[in-house]
């Protein structure tokens, strides 16, 4: 196959102080596919996404988007590359000094794609796509439940119809039904926009619903990658231990006794 991967990581390393978090991550995500990344808490999944976004500078390695090395770009080119990515942050990261509709329309307003007058209508439209009533637009983020905040954050991430979407634990902390609803919305959005997606999740059900492909990160490396259907019967002892939540296995949690 000769298609250029939408996102291609080679040997990405990052440490904080003397703590090595990413230790040579290699990952390819093909255009139009959804990649689910699983891995233990603190294994560096969020750091990985922030490296691709350019929010954290890796110590070594290359990150290519559409075959272009992002790390070698100058600042305007990098900002342009970043504008093509929509990100749903782990904790939502809604701007709590702005009403919901301004949160949703923030990217569009910043890119001067629409006038302020039209922005609210557009925000209400996008809120509708994630199943929220237009009246929610006038509320403040602090007035929403966790599930609604996740949906608003999702709406904000997709509002500018990005080519690439990142989801950092989109269903953590939600009830199973709301989790399924959000998963459905994510699949819808990715299909409708034709985007390439990377999703991080701890929820195996959710992983199989969202993902075409799945990869597992452990000790700063990708230790397994395959298609998402095989997640529960991967044959890889590490993945099996993780997906089935077993205490015994090759992964030793570092707990202080």
């Amino acid at each position, binding site marked *: 196959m000769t298609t250029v991967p939408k996102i291609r990581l080679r040997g990405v390393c990052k440490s904080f102080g003397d703590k090595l978090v990413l230790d040579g991550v290699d990952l390819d995500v093909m255009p139009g596919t959804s990649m689910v990344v699983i891995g233990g808490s603190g294994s560096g999944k969020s750091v990985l996404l*922030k490296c691709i*976004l*350019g*929010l954290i500078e890796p110590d070594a390695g290359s990150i290519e988007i559409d075959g272009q090395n992002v790390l070698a770009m100058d600042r305007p080119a990098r*900002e342009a590359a*970043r*504008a093509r*990515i*929509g*990100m749903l*942050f*782990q*904790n939502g*990261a*809604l*701007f*709590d*000094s702005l009403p919901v509709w301004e949160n949703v329309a*923030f*990217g569009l307003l*910043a*890119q*001067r794609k629409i006038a302020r007058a039209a922005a609210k209508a557009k925000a209400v439209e996008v809120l509708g796509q994630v199943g929220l009533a237009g009246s929610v637009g006038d509320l403040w983020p602090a007035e929403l439940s966790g599930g609604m905040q996740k949906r608003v954050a999702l709406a*904000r991430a997709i509002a*500018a119809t990005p080519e690439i979407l990142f989801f950092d634990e989109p269903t953590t902390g939600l009830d199973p039904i709301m989790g399924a609803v959000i998963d459905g919305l994510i699949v819808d959005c990715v299909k409708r926009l034709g985007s390439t997606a990377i999703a991080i999740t701890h929820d195996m059900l959710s992983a199989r619903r969202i993902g075409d492909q799945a990869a597992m990160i452990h000790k700063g490396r990708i230790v397994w990658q395959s298609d998402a259907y095989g997640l529960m019967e991967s044959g890889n002892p590490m993945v099996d231990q993780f997906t089935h939540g077993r205490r015994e296995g090759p992964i030793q949690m570092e707990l202080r006794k």
Partner: protein
Amino acid sequence: MMLDGVATLGRAALGTCRGAGRLVLFALAGLSHIVRPPFYFRAFFRAMLDIGYFSLPVVALTAVFTGMVLALQSSTGLSRFSADSAIASLVVLSVTRELGPVLAGLMVAGRVGAAMAAEIGTMRVTDQVDALSTLSTNPMKYLVAPRLLAGLIALPLLVVIADILGVLGGFIIATLKLGFNAATYLGNTLTFMQTQDVVSGLVKAAVFGLLISLMGCYHGYNSKGGAQGVGAATTAAVVAASVLILAFDYVLTELFFAR
């Protein structure tokens, strides 16, 4: 043993230099964004409201009482040596040159510097600053530049009001309590009020306003580690701004008045 001490000292010195360097770079970046588009007028007006308008009551009260105390103290100190003109000149001089800008600066540092550090710090630790970057918005431009500009403009405006109210406070005590003639007192005030004093006070105010915003933004922007980190950033912003205000007050006074 000796060497250990030297090494520790050296490390501390290096750390301080690094910190100062980072701060200067941050300030230059923030200031350069003030003059480069896009401009965020809403953020600027909100910052003007926060720094200027909502600080009015506390600055006004401080100024009035300071003027009153000045008049009262000097009346006992100067006793009967042509006290009426001496008090008027003392009040107008100390208020416009020193007490107006410094006290307004310190009050605003406590009020606004803390709030700024807390707001930006919270945005930092909840990923909102990162979220700005992912939404085609430069956080330095959106969060820092408008606040720096607002500090620079709002503080002199506040100090104009503080100057007037400070003199008014002195006037109240001089006429109502010490029994001076109102017209004479005002005449003396106007005679002794020098343009240079007022202007130097306003320049000081602009510098203090910039320092307050800079400290609030810098410490908020670089805070880490959750609620505790934000708390530490808030404290650091207020302490640093207050100390810097007093230090720069000395430096600017040297520049304006020492010959």
